[in-house]
């Protein structure tokens, strides 16, 4: 049993954290996060150069990581800085390309951006209800349907699209410029796209992609949970600092016992969130991966909302403003619940197990 990071991972964590803090400070983050194209090409390249993408894939796929703990180290650092870059799409695409045995050097080097397009308006989280259809067409396939809220889709070069082929969910690679892609910004920063496919050509990667998509989702969940833990730590620290300095009725509000105990409850839930994220990371790739991913995503959804709402409430008005960084952390923590399955979806999965 060992709860310390390996030296390599600690170095990666430190270098990412330092870069984000020094080179991608909050004003720059907000500009990239809320103005088209809802990310920053130069910071994307810098993160790639620091190895943030290579860390997401195992050696056999050309990376130097790829375990749950590699993923969580990267995303915890990203979460601490509310980094809006489309790294999640890269992670999930990397898992899918590995499953397909496809080359992914362009992905890991950051040269090509990938987005994973599974969700549809009537099929957000599961795969059963997917309506997008693929059919053979000449040498390849043609896809028709609409993919919604494709995270990172607004700047993706390549889309990995889940579509029904002969009744099974298959996976295709589609060049973004072959599809009708409408990008937009998000409530919590960063971007996504609506992707409309009309007999759009695609390359078949996996004819039966259910398992690979499940693995990619599990990896994505570990990433989102780690991102949330990173963001919660920062928001908790900001809140405690505010309690220490803000005065009302002549004393620091941190002297009010009610706020003290509520801050302790935040701390407790954050430690629980950290724990379940470690567990989900440890189980990633194993037979229990989905179960622990669901546990983690459920707990993160609850803890994230608690931390966000309590942080706002304890700050008072200031945290209701765009200018205060804490408000953006709160938004991210609430909105992260809707990605890759929300608290209720994952609770249902744990119930069914």
């Amino acid at each position, binding site marked *: 049993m060992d709860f310390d990071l390996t030296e390599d991972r600690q170095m990666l964590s430190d270098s990412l954290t330092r870069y984000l803090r020094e080179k991608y400070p909050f004003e720059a983050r907000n500009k990239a996060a809320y103005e088209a194209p809802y990310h920053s090409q130069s910071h994307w390249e810098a993160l790639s150069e620091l190895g943030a993408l290579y860390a997401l894939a195992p050696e056999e796929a050309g990376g130097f990581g790829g375990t749950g703990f590699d993923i969580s180290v990267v995303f915890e650092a990203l979460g601490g800085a509310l980094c809006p870059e489309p790294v999640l799409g890269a992670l999930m695409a990397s898992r899918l390309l590995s499953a397909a045995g496809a080359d992914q050097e362009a992905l890991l080097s950051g040269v090509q951006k990938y987005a994973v397009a599974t969700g549809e*308006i009537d099929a957000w989280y599961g795969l059963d209800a997917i309506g997008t259809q693929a059919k053979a067409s000449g040498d390849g396939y043609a896809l028709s349907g609409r993919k919604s809220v494709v995270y990172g889709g607004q700047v993706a070069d390549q889309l990995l699209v889940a579509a029904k082929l002969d009744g099974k969910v298959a996976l295709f690679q589609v060049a973004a410029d072959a599809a009708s892609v409408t990008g937009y910004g998000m409530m919590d920063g960063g971007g996504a796209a609506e992707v409309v496919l009309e007999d759009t050509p695609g390359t078949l990667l996996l004819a039966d992609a259910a398992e690979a998509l499940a693995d990619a989702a599990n990896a994505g969940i570990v990433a989102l949970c780690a991102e949330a833990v990173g963001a919660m730590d920062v928001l908790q620290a900001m809140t405690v600092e505010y309690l220490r300095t803000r005065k009302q009725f002549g004393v620091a509000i941190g002297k009010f016992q009610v706020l003290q105990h509520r801050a302790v409850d935040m701390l407790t839930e954050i430690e629980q969130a950290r724990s379940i994220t470690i567990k989900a990371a440890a189980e990633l790739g194993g037979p229990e991966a989905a179960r622990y991913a669901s546990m983690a995503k459920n707990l993160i959804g609850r803890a994230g909302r608690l931390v966000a709402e309590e942080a706002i*409430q304890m700050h008072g008005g200031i945290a209701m403003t*765009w200018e205060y960084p804490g408000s953006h952390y709160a938004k991210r923590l609430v909105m992260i619940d809707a990605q890759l399955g929300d608290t209720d979806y994952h609770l249902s999965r744990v119930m069914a197990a």
Partner: protein
Amino acid sequence: MDLSFTPEEQAFREEVRAFFAENLPKEMSDAVRAGGELTKDIMDRYHALLNDKGWLATTWPEEFGGPGWSPVQRHIFEEEACRAYAPRIVPFGLAMLGPVLQQFGSKAQQDYYLPRILSGEDWWCQGYSEPGAGSDLASLKTRAVRDGDDYVINGQKTWTTLGQHANKIFCLVRTDPDVKQQKGISFILVDLDTPGIEMRPIKLIEGGHEVNEVFFTDVRVPAENLVGEENQGWTIAKFLLTHERTNIAGVGFSMQSLEEVKALARKVMRNGRPLIEDPLFAARVAQVEIDLEAMKLTNLRMLYKAQKQGAPGPETSILKIKGTVIGQELKDLARRALGPSAAPFPGLLSANLDPAPEDAAHNAARYFNNRKTSIFGGSNEIQRNILTKTMLEL
């Protein structure tokens, strides 16, 4: 014990309902349903619509142009306005300054200002909060120094709601810095055109412009703009706080939200079936529906008590606490129901491309914006402190 309304009250409800059905432009109710910020034009026209009918100043005595309604009638009116998706009446002139002037203002102030509030000629905003004093109003620092026939004001106000539309502001200012905090405060009326005033927007968490900062630099205001006596401001502020807090529980708005959530959950699909058939989501909805049903009665019980006693008691803080929690829970469900389609920043996508159903694109923004309700108007923590003293006597 009888929960029914009198035949007269029921007739009144029918009258109000018919009025909205016939006179509220669809464009207004559509805008309210859509959930974004309302334009000044819509708010102005709604104001005029009610004023023409004589139903604008619902809390004013008839002598000043109010409709002479009982608290129960006002309650019915508010319920029906919510039911019709009417805009909210902007409260600063009508619900706040009006009663203050009627109670503390001079005859001249009443004669001049009250008609202008009704006509819409004056749009008032509120200068209470300051950057350093949130819930701790008594520590305010904005100074007003008497200089001949004027006061000269220096300082800063914040959280001034809809100040961007206003031409006037009423302020709490410190007129005597040497006495105990509450004692040296006065209540004064200021024209926003006066030189030395600068209003700057505050962008809110969800990106909206609803509140402002107001900076005062050597702003000269005629001394006749003082309401009541000098240093009587705290009395006026407390009058406003303990004065009937209309619809503090927000029951009507929560009923609106509940209907919206239910309609949405019947419409959106999750795991191959309508979301409302997901037992976990349905349980969340039913739970808050029960709390809201209880809150309706709690609200009526306190309304009844206030009507009997002539003034609401401290237990209205219960309405504030529980009412905002219910409202926030409903906004959470409205956001949650959308799943990922809650995430796009509203307004960036055309309706046919927006993954959220009609009228739901603002749901996430409304959830975040709504967090304010447990903070402003005396935070829920302050309300608990009040109840500790008044009801528990601890």
